[in-house]
C-alpha cells in the first residue's frame, strides 16, 4: 500500500525503522476501536476483532503509522497535553484516508464543500475522547486551537492523499527530496 510504504520510509529516514514483530501487535479490543499507538512502548496495536476488510486494515495501519511518525520526529506529550494529542489526531484523520467522501457516506454523514475538514475535526475529537478521560468541551477546544497548524502539516506526504495514486505521487516526491534540498 503506497500510504504505508511512504510512512515506513519516512520513519526509517527519521531514525525509527519499523520491525513488524517489535512495533506491531494484533490484539482483541473492547468496543469498536480499530487500533491505537502506544507511545509508552512505541508499538502499534491493531484490533484484530474489529478489522474485517483489507481496505480498513490499510487505513488503520496508515493512521497509526502517522502517530508513530509524529512520535519519532517530535516531542509529543501524548498523555498530559491534549493539544499535542489533538494535533496528531488531526493529522492522522486528514492524511490516512479516514475522511474520504465514500467513507463519510458509509457513515451516513453527507456534505461536500469543505466537508473533509468537518470530518477531520469530528474524528479527531472522537479519537481524543476514546483514549483520554477528558470532557467533550476540552477535546473540542484543543482541536480548535491547533487545527490550522496541524491540518496544514502534511508531512511526510506533502499533499492530502485522496487516493492511492495521490499517495504514489507523494512517495515519488518524498524519494526525490534530496534533489529538492540541493537547491536550497
Amino acid at each position, binding site marked *: 500500500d503506497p500510504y504505508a510504504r511512504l510512512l515506513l520510509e519516512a520513519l526509517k529516514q527519521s531514525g525509527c525503522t519499523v520491525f513488524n514483530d517489535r512495533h506491531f501487535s494484533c490484539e482483541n479490543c473492547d468496543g469498536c476501536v480499530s487500533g491505537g499507538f502506544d507511545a509508552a512502548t512505541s508499538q502499534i496495536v491493531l484490533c484484530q476483532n474489529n478489522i474485517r476488510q483489507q481496505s480498513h486494515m490499510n487505513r488503520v495501519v496508515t493512521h497509526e503509522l502517522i502517530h508513530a511518525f509524529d512520535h519519532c520526529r517530535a516531542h509529543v506529550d501524548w498523555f498530559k497535553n491534549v493539544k499535542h494529542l489533538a494535533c496528531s489526531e488531526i493529522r492522522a484523520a486528514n492524511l490516512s484516508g479516514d475522511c474520504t467522501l465514500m467513507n463519510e457516506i458509509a457513515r451516513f454523514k453527507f456534505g461536500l464543500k469543505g466537508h473533509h475538514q468537518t470530518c477531520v475535526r469530528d474524528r479527531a475529537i472522537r479519537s481524543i475522547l476514546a483514549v483520554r478521560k477528558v470532557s467533550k468541551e476540552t477535546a473540542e477546544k484543543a482541536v480548535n486551537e*491547533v487545527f*490550522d497548524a496541524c491540518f496544514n502539516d502534511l508531512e511526510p506526504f506533502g499533499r492530502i492523499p*485522496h487516493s492511492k495514486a495521490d499517495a504514489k505521487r507523494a512517495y515519488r516526491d518524498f524519494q526525490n527530496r534530496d534533489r529538492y534540498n540541493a537547491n*536550497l
Partner: protein
Amino acid sequence: QPPRSCEDYWGEWKHCRGLRHAFHHYYAHGELPDCGRWREDYEACRAWERDRAAAAQVPASLLACPRLCRPGLLGQKPCSRRVWKLRKSPPPDWYLPLD
C-alpha cells in the same frame, strides 16, 4: 537542476486540471484549485533546459514555488512546530525490547 523534472511539472499540471482532483480539492478546501502555477513552473523548467548549455541558473521561481516549500517536505520546519517541539534524535526507547 530544477527540483523536479519538467515532465513532473507537466504531470502535476494535468493532474491538477483533472475533474477528479478538482472534486477532491473542493471537498477538502471548499474551493476549486488554482493550477496555473504548475504550468508556469513547467514553462520555466523547459526554458531552463533550452538555456542550460549557456550555464543558466535554475529560475528563482522554481526554487521559490510554494509547493516546494511545503513545510516538512524539504526539511523545513512543519506548521505543527507551533504545537510541539521537534526532536533532534529519535526516541531512545524505539528499539528497546518489550518486557
